[in-house]
């Protein structure tokens, strides 16, 4: 019984640490979002709470706690409370299967730096992300507000549309790994065999879909303030609004971690073998966990960078891109991947498919532009 108990304790500690990391990163993402926005717009940004304003997330949390929270009289009370809770819960649950690091041995106990290594791994992430739309839809509907309802419906429509292309780009990865387990997918990419080299097109599709799934600019139509006031969270205040906003930042971090896991080798980094030989497996694994979080944070930065670079899409453009752009592209990607695996030259096939696609797009564009001008 003794080893089982220690293993259980180790798992409990890991669950707490994973929660702490995701919540901490999400809290500080709000600070860095504002700092990066300020940097890009040549402003100072938050600088009053503590040195350089680093206590700003704490101040925001205190504000959220102290605000009055009221439920509109026409709202459906329990669904109104359930909406943000479901959003937050789904955001937190996705982090369970991310492999943060390889096997480590601490105080005689050997365990993985991962919440749970289940054989459905990536399917779990995909399913939970799909459930996330319920939080927004329920919140939007329960508010009994026109703007909120429209926001919720937009969110549902957008999320289900981009989910398809996202799933198809994951399938191209699965064709290499032959397993749904995130751990196996990462292990197949060790020593620099990162999937990004085999799947450049799949990565582009995935990152665009990740933007849409997180409701981030340029796809933040559900909370588009120029059209819908606050979108689905128009009627929310206090900690319930906080849950919605927090869920968005957690989703950003987790999607960054999933991108790192699927396409950028997870906890792999150049010189892993060398470090493992010099210092031992455990420190190397911990550095690997740092590398994964670093990659995820880089993607969080890309999310913010894009937010202050691109304007928002119009709704018909958004749906057009999803249905007539990304879905055919991702089917093409599955096809190219299949041919690449059959021919035994996946890298060449992947890059050739990508180049062919770009050439095709340029030719198509040239033909249609000439028609339009003439």
């Amino acid at each position, binding site marked *: 019984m003794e080893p089982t108990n220690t293993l259980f304790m180790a798992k409990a500690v890991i669950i707490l640490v994973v929660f702490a990391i995701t919540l901490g990163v999400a809290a500080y993402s709000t600070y860095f979002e504002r700092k990066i926005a300020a940097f890009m717009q040549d402003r100072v940004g938050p600088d009053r709470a503590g040195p350089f304003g680093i206590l700003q997330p704490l101040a925001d949390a205190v504000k959220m706690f102290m605000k009055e929270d009221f439920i509109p009289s026409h709202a459906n009370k329990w669904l109104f409370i359930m909406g943000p809770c479901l959003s937050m819960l789904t955001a937190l649950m996705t982090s369970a299967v991310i492999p943060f690091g390889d096997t480590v041995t601490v105080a005689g106990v050997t365990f993985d730096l991962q919440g749970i290594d289940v054989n459905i791994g990536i399917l779990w992430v995909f399913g939970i992300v799909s459930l996330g739309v319920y939080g927004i839809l329920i919140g939007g509907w329960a508010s009994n507000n026109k703007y909120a309802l429209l926001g919720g419906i937009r969110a*549902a429509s957008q999320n289900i549309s981009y989910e398809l292309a996202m799933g198809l780009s994951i399938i191209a990865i699965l064709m290499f790994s032959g397993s749904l387990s995130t751990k196996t997918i990462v292990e197949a990419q060790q020593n620099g065999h990162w999937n990004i080299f085999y799947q450049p097109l799949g990565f582009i599709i995935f990152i665009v879909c990740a933007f849409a799934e997180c409701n981030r600019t340029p796809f933040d139509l559900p909370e588009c303030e120029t059209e819908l006031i606050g979108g689905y969270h128009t009627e929310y205040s206090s900690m319930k609004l906080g849950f919605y906003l927090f869920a968005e930042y957690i989703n950003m971090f987790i999607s960054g971690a999933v991108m790192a896991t699927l396409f950028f080798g997870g906890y792999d980094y150049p010189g892993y073998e060398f470090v493992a030989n010099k210092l031992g497996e455990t420190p190397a694994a911990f550095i690997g966990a740092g590398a994964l979080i670093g990659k995820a944070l880089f993607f969080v930065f890309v999310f913010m960078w894009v937010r202050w670079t691109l304007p928002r899409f119009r709704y018909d453009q958004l749906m057009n891109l999803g249905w007539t752009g990304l879905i055919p592209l991702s089917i093409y990607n599955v096809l190219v991947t299949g041919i690449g695996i059959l021919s035994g030259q996946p890298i060449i096939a992947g890059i050739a498919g990508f180049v062919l696609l770009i050439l095709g797009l340029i030719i198509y564009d040239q033909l249609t532009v000439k028609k339009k001008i003439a």
Partner: protein
Amino acid sequence: MIESFGYVLAFLVAGTGFMALVLTLARFIRPNRPNDEKLSTYESGEAPVGNANVRFNPRFYLYALLFVLFEIELILLFPWAVVFGDKQLAAASENWKHFALFEMLIFIGILGLGLAYAWVKGYLEWEKPNIQAEDFKSPVPPKAYEKFN
């Protein structure tokens, strides 16, 4: 493997506990002074008009129907991709991978045909308002905008 799902439950419990803790904690320290004005539905400061369950574009339903179609495709593709990547099956028979890929292409092809049908029929197009031409003479030719719209 099945006990791994016990940890899934642990995650669920920890997440729910965290949220319950935060919401209850906030309940005790925040003020609570509701009045009729605060509790009314927000509609840009005006008194709310009519039912909030407004009509919306039926196109959303079409997308939902198309989504169901493609989601079923995805559900079938996930196990297919795992079997396709299986090294043992590939080693067992030479033509296994060709067969699996070809079989799936037929399936995707039929669904792709459905998407193409919806596309050609214009179900994926959103109705756009007719914009009236103005007298203003812009140096930018109006055709140049078509490239973006």
